[in-house]
């Protein structure tokens, strides 16, 4: 990676202190996310990849707690910021999209209010009227044909694919420098998934740093530039996608990459 990475995570640890013992969800992770690149976090369910993304934003719910590590974003360590300062970072510098697009939006709030809230939280002086045009072209940029109708509609009136695009739009409208996509396409159909990944590639080319969390190696192979394989909260292998696929070192990575072949 040429210049310094936008997001640098150093030996991050997030532990869960539950009744039956400590669960080490994230156990010492080092990670770099470059500008204009897609970095994939791959692992089975329960490997801690989603908890890693929540820890970056310091949105870990009790009984989880971040106990160690630094999270450098554009040269600032988020772990040293107060909750108030962190609120300015969330949404403005780091945006996030989730796995279930239809449930990641408030069912009784129109799309335009969602978009407005994304910007208004960080700049109270803004008024809806003068942001509408910007919203319209952001929706066009993420491939939504008729933005006016969509701005006025409710989340349940949109398909999964459309909802996910609106979530991506919410990331762009505050021109965040990092977008964390937690399993963005696992609950979408194949064709919609291909379209959404196309949008992410376009965002990457426009200079955004994207963290793509997934369990699907097909998505990683066709979309990501670098990849980190995560197992039980630890990074067991990482590097550019072509190198890791060409010569996987760890047994678990080899196992994930093995195609399905039946003994006939």
């Amino acid at each position, binding site marked *: 990676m040429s210049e310094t990475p936008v997001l640098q995570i150093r030996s991050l640890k997030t532990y869960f202190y539950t009744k039956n013992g400590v669960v080490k969800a994230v156990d010492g992770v080092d990670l770099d996310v470059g500008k204009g690149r897609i970095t994939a976090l791959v692992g089975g369910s329960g490997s801690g990849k989603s908890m890693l993304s929540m820890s970056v*934003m310091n*949105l870990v719910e009790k009984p989880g707690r971040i106990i160690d590590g630094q999270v450098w974003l554009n040269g600032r360590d988020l772990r040293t910021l107060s*909750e108030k300062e962190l*609120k*300015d*970072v*969330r*949404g*403005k510098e*780091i*945006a*996030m999209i*989730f*796995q*279930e697009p239809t*449930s*990641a*939006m*408030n*069912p*009784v*709030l129109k799309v335009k209010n969602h978009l407005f*809230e*994304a910007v208004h*939280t*960080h700049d109270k002086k803004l008024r809806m009227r003068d942001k509408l045009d910007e919203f319209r072209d952001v929706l066009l940029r993420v491939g939504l044909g008729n933005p006016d109708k969509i701005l006025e509609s*409710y989340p*349940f*009136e949109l398909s999964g694919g459309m909802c996910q695009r609106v*979530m991506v739009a*919410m990331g762009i409208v505050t021109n965040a420098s990092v977008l964390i996509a937690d399993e963005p396409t696992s609950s979408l159909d194949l064709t919609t998934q291909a379209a959404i990944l196309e949008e992410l590639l376009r965002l990457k080319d426009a200079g955004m740093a994207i963290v793509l969390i997934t369990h699907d190696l097909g998505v990683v192979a066709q979309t990501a530039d670098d990849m980190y394989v995560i197992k039980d909260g630890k990074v067991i292998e990482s590097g550019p996608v072509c190198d890791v696929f060409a010569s996987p070192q760890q047994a678990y990575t080899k196992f994930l990459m093995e195609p399905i072949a039946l003994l006939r």
Partner: protein
Amino acid sequence: MKRFKLIVKRVVQIVPILLIVTLLAFFLSNVSSGDVATVTLQSRGVQPTEQNLAAVREELGLNAPLPVQYINWLKKAVQFDFGISFQTHKPVSEEIFARFPATLKLALAATLMSLVFSIPLALLSARYKDSTADHTIRILSSVGATIPDFWLGLMLLYLFGVVLKIVPVISGSKLSNIFLPAFTLSVAYGATYVRVLRSNLIEVRRFDYMKAARARGLGEGKALAKHGLKNALLPMVTLIGINFGKLLSGQIATETIFSWNGIGKFAVDSMKVKDLPVIQGYIMIVSITYIAINLILDILYMYIDPRIQSD
């Protein structure tokens, strides 16, 4: 428009219910323990002899076959004419409408009071889940939900009336002392609202859109109030509406304790003296208000929750 079709369908559903209400009210006078003619005569202070019994039967049209009687009664009932009250010899509708404002005031005050203290408490205990505040609020609300409103009324009357002597033990329905009866009613309903709203708020926090709101930079409290509250309040609208309907039908016990002469107290007093026209009038008017409120509630719900008119 889709919504209009739903409203029409809802209104059509009411017809069978209204029919049953009228049948119930009508049968009240025919099948009740005393014979209508004798009871009417006694209320007029006339000795029931053979001739005037026959005369009264003729006057009230009791000899006509049952369905015909029902139709005439229905014709009058539609214009809110339920005959004359035996006790006060004034038209029943007048008596009821004179007392309706008192019950309405009480219902409004109780509902408002129950919301005023239940919503903040629910927000507080959902926000700081499993904290001491949460536990105390939960214990308070479960105890509040168990204390029957009539007993609470008696205890409050004893505390304020007898011990502290602030409130006269026998009070008319002046606005000044609406506080006690309204507070009595609001405790029971409010306790239920706290528990329901709290569990809805906790349920709502689990949804992704709350996490997404936090990820957009909203604080925990703001996200809960801005996104969570509305989604949590939606299911409450029906509950509040139904309870308001019940309050409007006159909380008989509370009205009797605080001698608050609303329509509930009036209905029970007339029940004791077998003043049948009043009972018929009460049943008709209360059912109609209750059904009207349910209808308004459904229509209101269609406008509040956008998801309704689409499915």
